[in-house]
């Protein structure tokens, strides 16, 4: 990281801060975000204060237009409900809002992702007798199938998580769906934000490509940390480090109690 200008951050920036800031920038001009608690919330709140003033988070619990008195600890935290603009039933949330096509960006995580943005959140190993049983889809399958695009934030960038072949495909991107003759609404995963850089794809038929690295990270480092033969964009940019203004907003306005900025 660089400390040579006054607008960039000191090198005390944590990994959570870095990922939140980078993800927030990608939300420019987006309006509705389906997000879990943690980094996606921080990214969305920061985007609201910077690049996306009209952005609204819809939580998987059914809350729209939350005005929480404290930073929520879960997507169902009581502080998200009190003072919210609307709380929807599950059929309304998943049926009308999500499947109805009202979400611009869905945030998802995964234990494994492949080059097409397909995700595994079910098992490591065989489904029938796995070495690790993971939580499963939750609403992930629906977020992928119905959001206009999906952002994935992955702390760990290593060949086991960025896999040549998924142990199990819980949450398919649109390429897999189309191969089965089913047409999803959105583009699937369009951004993967990691500690090493940003992978991106525009939509159906495209693999994830490395489009930017963080300062000091090389393209070769990212390729070595990726389980498939990762292609890079013609020009791989450098992610501008968090500015002091971004960090100040994140630390002082978004998460002053450092609930997630650990």
């Amino acid at each position: 990281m660089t400390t040579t200008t006054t607008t960039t951050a000191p090198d005390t920036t944590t990994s959570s801060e870095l990922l939140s800031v980078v993800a927030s920038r990608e939300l420019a001009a987006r309006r509705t975000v389906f997000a879990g608690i943690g980094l996606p919330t921080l990214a969305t709140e920061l985007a609201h204060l910077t690049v996306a003033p009209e952005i609204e988070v819809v939580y998987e619990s059914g809350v729209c237009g939350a005005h929480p008195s404290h930073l929520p600890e879960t997507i169902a935290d009581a502080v998200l409900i009190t003072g919210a603009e609307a709380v929807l039933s599950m059929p309304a949330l998943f049926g009308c809002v999500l499947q109805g096509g009202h979400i611009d960006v869905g945030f998802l995580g995964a234990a494994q992702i492949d080059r097409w943005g397909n995700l595994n959140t079910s098992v490591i190993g065989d489904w029938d007798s796995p070495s690790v049983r993971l939580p499963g889809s939750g609403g992930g399958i629906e977020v992928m199938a119905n959001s206009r695009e999906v952002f994935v934030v992955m702390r760990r960038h290593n060949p086991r998580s960025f896999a040549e072949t998924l142990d199990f495909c819980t949450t398919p991107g649109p390429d897999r769906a189309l191969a089965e003759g089913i047409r999803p609404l959105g583009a699937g995963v369009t951004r993967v934000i990691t500690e090493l850089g940003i992978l991106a794809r525009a939509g159906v038929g495209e693999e994830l490509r490395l489009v930017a690295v963080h300062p000091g990270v090389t393209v070769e480092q990212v390729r070595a940390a990726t389980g498939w033969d990762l292609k890079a964009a013609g020009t791989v940019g450098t992610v501008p480090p968090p500015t002091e203004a971004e960090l100040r907003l994140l630390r002082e306005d978004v998460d002053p109690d450092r609930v997630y900025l650990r």
Partner: protein
Amino acid sequence: MATTERKDKTMSMKAAVAAFVHDGGTVCLEGFTHLVPTAAGHEIIRQGRRDLTVVRMTADIVVDQMIAAGCVSRLVSSFVGNSSAGSLGELRRRIETGEPAPLAFEEYSHYGMICRYLAGAQRLPFHPLRSYGGSDLPSVNSDLRKVTSPYPGPDGEPEQIYVVPPVNPDVTIIHAQRADLSGNTQIWGLTGIQAEAVYAADKAIVVVEEIVDDEVIRSDPNRTLVPAHAVDAVVVCPRGAHPSFAQGYYDRDNAFYRAWSHISKDPRRLQEWLAEWVLGTADHAEYVDKLGEQFWAGLAVGEALSRPVNYGRRL
């Protein structure tokens, strides 16, 4: 933690209808007996819209008026009557005699319409329902089709079930008790199919008795049936549901329902009524004034307040 500043979506009825209701378009007006968006229908008449497809479960007085004004070429509905008070004269003439112009009619049952809204709102290609088996309706409505369930029926044999297609209006208009400036809309009493009709549409206009402060809406988020992100325009129009009612605001004008059967039976009398009460008024405020304060006093309601619930506050 920061919170979003929301857009002010309030518009005049005139501007909202001009912006979102277009000749040849599909317009859904919902409100099951309660909160019928009459004032919006009247403004559509004033602006002289033509060739509309109207989608409405209970095609009642406002639909008869829109047909009589020449706005409607096609109707999608599950009940075409003047409530329990009699007939819709113009609608009957159009269908029975084709005069002065025919009206295309797609006939459904109530749950068929509900399932069309559900499918439309949820972007489903169809919605199944346990209706229509043995009915003559599928013989006159080719959109009532059957699907074989991929699971065995109760007797172990393949099971067939009827389905309806989604409806996706160009615009849905509903009437509600209140909303905030950005369109978070609260309805109580009969809530009907309004939320699904809004989600099924490309654009949505919410007409309200009153705009309230954000704090009022946010004191009871479960009461918000239509969230702001689904709403394109908020129109303030007190008493805009007359002759239907708005629970807690004014009662139903049962006398007018009874009168409509007579008014609409005579085409000349109907056109005179439209000329005087719709085309002869600049907007709904004038219509309300013309009815007079004494009239409205007769529909006034008393107070029966809900008891508050505690949403809780972190200590």
